[in-house]
């Protein structure tokens, strides 16, 4: 118990970081699900590709051990290029795998998405080999930069992750609640046909949803690379499962829900790993998912939609 209390603050800090990342991934799932009613199986791999784009930019801008441009700028460029790249990747996925299948049987786009996911994994395997790639974050953000609260330490990298995630989430909320595009998205998610009749360009809204959701996942990939340093071609698979769990936990299709779900899942996982065992780290998310589905399938913030016939 003594040990538990002593470690708790630090674990909470770690959980917050992880939760921020999960929330970013969960947002993409939830947005696409909201607009299309579709589970995007390739989403986890978009996140993985984002991590690799970040790694590529890093290798170009930091060829040996000193960055060519100021460190802050390196991080900004990494994030921006990864966002742009994964955003376009999301658009490509929508074109290739989902657009033709909007009115197909439910199972068809799922299998198609599975194919994209497998393709992306192996594309990275082919070009980057199966090695773990290491982000040398300490060259950008010295590990001595940290806030020390005595009971817990908050490194600058973690602050960066949390700050970026929070900023993006505020931006997304603003976009969805206050802009024309956001209104169009909400309209499409309520009723696609009615929205089209009201003059909403549904195809464009869906494309932009994919762009934004994928860009968020790509950012998450870079942030994970910065904090946990290692990236490899198979990282998207588990991350995708966890992002989805977070989205379901918060209520799928619900944007604040995805943020909350990510946070809760990150906390639960970190605490479980810290106090039980790290061996079963990835099993926890699965247990959470099954429990949510058993107890409250509509999620924490979701509302139960009556099934229309």
């Amino acid at each position, binding site marked *: 118990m003594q040990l538990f209390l002593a470690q708790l603050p630090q674990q909470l800090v770690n959980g917050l970081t992880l939760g921020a990342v999960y929330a970013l991934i969960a947002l993409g799932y939830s947005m696409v699900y909201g607009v299309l009613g579709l589970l995007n199986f390739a989403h986890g791999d978009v996140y993985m590709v984002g991590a690799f784009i970040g790694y590529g930019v890093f290798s170009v801008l930091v060829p040996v051990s000193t960055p060519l441009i100021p460190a802050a700028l390196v991080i900004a460029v990494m994030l921006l290029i990864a966002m742009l790249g994964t955003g376009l990747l999301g658009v490509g996925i929508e074109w290739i795998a989902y657009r033709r299948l909007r009115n197909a049987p439910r199972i068809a786009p799922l299998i198609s998405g599975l194919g994209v996911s*497998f393709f992306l994994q192996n594309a990275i395997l082919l070009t980057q080999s199966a090695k773990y790639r290491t982000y040398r974050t300490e060259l950008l953000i010295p590990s001595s930069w940290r806030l020390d609260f005595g009971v817990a330490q908050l490194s600058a990298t973690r602050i960066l992750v949390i700050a970026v995630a929070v900023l993006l989430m505020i931006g997304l909320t603003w976009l969805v609640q206050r802009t024309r595009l956001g209104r169009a998205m909400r309209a499409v998610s309520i009723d696609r046909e009615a929205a089209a009749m009201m003059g909403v360009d549904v195809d464009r809204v869906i494309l932009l949803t994919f762009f934004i959701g994928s860009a968020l996942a790509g950012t998450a990939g870079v942030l994970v690379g910065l904090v946990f340093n290692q990236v490899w071609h198979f990282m998207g698979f588990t991350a995708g499962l966890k992002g989805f769990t977070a989205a379901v936990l918060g209520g799928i299709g619900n944007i604040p829900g995805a943020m909350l779900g990510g946070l809760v899942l990150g906390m639960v996982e970190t605490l479980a790993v810290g106090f039980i065992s790290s061996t079963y780290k990835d099993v926890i998310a699965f247990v959470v998912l099954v429990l949510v589905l058993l107890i409250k399938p509509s999620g924490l913030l979701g509302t139960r939609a009556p099934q229309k016939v």
Partner: protein
Amino acid sequence: MSVDKFGQDEWVSQVGTRRRDETRLQLFIRRLRELPRLVQIGLLIALPLALPLLTANDYVLRVAGLICLYSVLALGLNIVVGFVGLLDLGYVAFFGMGGYGYALLSSAQFNIHVPTLISVPLMGLLAAGMGILLGLPSLRLSGDYLAIVTLGFGQVFVQLTTAMNRVQFPGSDQVINLTGGPNGIPDLDRLHVFGLSASSVTAYYYVLLASLVIVLIFVYRLNQSRLGRAWRAIREDSLAAEAMGIPTNRLRLLGFAIGAGIAGIMGAIFAAWQQSVFPGNFDVTLLITLYAMVVLGGVGSLYGMVLGAFVITALPEVLRPGTQIAGMELAQIAFYGGTLALLTILIRPRWRLVPILAALAVGGVIIHAVFAGLAPDALLVPDEKLSLISNLVQHWLPIPLNVPLATNLGNLAFFAVVILLVLLTQVPKNARIFPLIVTLYLLAFVWETRLSKEPSTTNLLLTGAMLVILMNYRPQGLFGQRRVEIA
């Protein structure tokens, strides 16, 4: 189109026209179908039965056994995906449970040696029971949830088998090695029944062939039964099915459990055949491969499953590096020939193929000449000892001599090809010719520098791409029949 008789609808009256439009392959399949049933079965059974007499090559028999194994797995998956219409992504975990269960009951791990006649059916029951447990919470929800829960289950299974080599049960200090971790469980008992023990490749081939025949008949009968009709009703419209008094949830669960049970039994047989189990035997790659077989064969079609399993298992074996015809790598012939065949099918009107190929050939030679002029020592030089195709290609494609450079350029070209292919689907038809030529040229470069060097990854890439393409353009698979959709 005229309607010949009263009560005959347009679709039926057009049967003649449709038959005239069918391709040779379809005609061939129809002719086969029209043969007497006994002849059909005889043809289908005779060759596989006689295979061990025709060849003494263990490698061929092993591949044939693998085809049987995958066929059965695809048939089981087809019950869940094709008949009931559920996306089961944890199927491989049931296969793995059968494998690991058999391993624990028939090895020195805990020094238990259960007779085959008990352990194999037991694994089927165990997997089916686990299927029911997993299905209960998730089947009530929409299909998407089932997909993700089962996907998670499959992932958890692999992680648990990897991690459970040091299990400490609460209240005991003893650390138990349950699954052997990444090293798996070695030295399993062979299948043994009534004093006979399956020890040769041939014996296992017959075991697998027999299970294929049994499962094929079982699934066929199942599909024709009341239960099969109920499943189809659920798949097409579960609400209407429920209104007709079909207990939808219970039947879904039953289909899910039967699929899982088949996977469990095959897992046990697979473990005995391999005489060991590893976590890596049961990972996502196998899952995607099975889905590729089901989708390629045509979801819901039984012969399609066997054909899908045959194509997807045999093709990589036939095309593996080193197989040569007249000194030319078979895989290389397949790549260039296959691309050409695809172009012939896809490009309409066909005469457009001529300028495309001409531009490709001339452009390539010019580009090669330019690079050869700029840096004569940096390129691969055609060599008389090489095959005809390789020689031609090296006069046409500037491939750097420096291998790391070629690899890096190949990687870049790979991404370029993927991006170009995606864009090509969005460009209006008339504007496609030039980007198409560039894409094809780059594709050849990627093939020579990367794809042909990494055959196993290429195989997986193609599997993924195939799933997407089939789902989008030919959801009924290669051999399935297009269903008439009534909207």
